């Protein structure tokens, strides 16, 4: 085992362990905070896969934005009196079967198909500049569409979430 493998297994432990807490914890606040470690672990995978810009974007957007939104959601949709913030589960047995089938087929296909692919040549340079060029050339139209989608989502979310004033 080399350092790369050890670091991979460290991040795999962090990611999968905290994802398990997200899925199985009864306490919503614990689930939200372990999602933080899942996102960090995934960002670590991106660094291992030589995607530095995406890793930084992951930390900025997921940890800085989406996780904060989810925590606000947790806080705003529970009565303050109920401090424990417990939540239940439904359909456990069918879900276990579904998850086992999905994981078995996915992992089987991945292992059978891709287990012989070896490491590519290691030319690791910064990707931010080249991603910027791609966004301005080959992906210019999706980039603009994404900006419109973000604007529409922002306006729509603000419109949906505001409280309507009662006309007296």
């Amino acid at each position, binding site marked *: *085992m080399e350092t*790369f*493998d050890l670091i991979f297994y460290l991040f*795999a432990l962090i990611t*999968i362990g905290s*994802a*398990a807490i*997200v*899925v199985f914890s009864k306490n*919503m606040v614990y689930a*939200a905070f372990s*999602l933080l470690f*899942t996102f960090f672990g*995934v960002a670590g*995978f*991106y660094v291992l*896969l030589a*995607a530095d810009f*995406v890793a930084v*974007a992951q930390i900025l*957007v*997921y940890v800085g*934005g989406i996780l904060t*939104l*989810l925590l606000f*959601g947790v806080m*705003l*949709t529970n009565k303050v009196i109920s401090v424990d913030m417990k*939540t*239940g*589960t*439904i359909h*456990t047995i069918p*879900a276990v079967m*579904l*998850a086992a089938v*999905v*994981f078995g087929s996915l*992992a089987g296909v*991945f*292992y059978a198909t*891709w*287990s012989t*692919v070896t*490491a*590519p*040549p290691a*030319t690791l340079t910064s990707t931010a500049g080249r*991603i910027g060029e*791609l*966004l301005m050339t080959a*992906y210019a139209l*999706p980039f603009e569409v*994404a900006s419109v989608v*973000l604007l529409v*989502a*922002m306006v729509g*979310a603000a419109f*949906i*979430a505001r409280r309507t004033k009662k006309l007296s």
Partner: protein
Amino acid sequence: MNSSVLSNFLDWLPHVQLAHFLIVSAVLFTFGLFAMVTRRNAILVLMGLELVLNAANINLIAFARYGGVNLDGQVAAIFVIILAAAEAAVALAIVLNIYHRFQTVNVDEISSLKE
């Protein structure tokens, strides 16, 4: 035959390659799917959705790295992150509205579209 499969697997395990990343993403995908199916609270269903999106992103970037160093997969991952941000904002706005109307966000109790 079984023992050779097992020894191949044990030989494969400590040398991290493409399939290791793919299998971690399969684990994340399964956890996310499980959370989306079993959780009663709508916020936790959204957390499961984020896990699924992260699993898809790991796949995109792993293939971008191992299929020759190619940036198209990373750009696709960035678009996934953008759409996840938009989705989280809109979904949480809807969840807040549901809470104001029904005083609960348990997905199995919200069964009416209109009062």
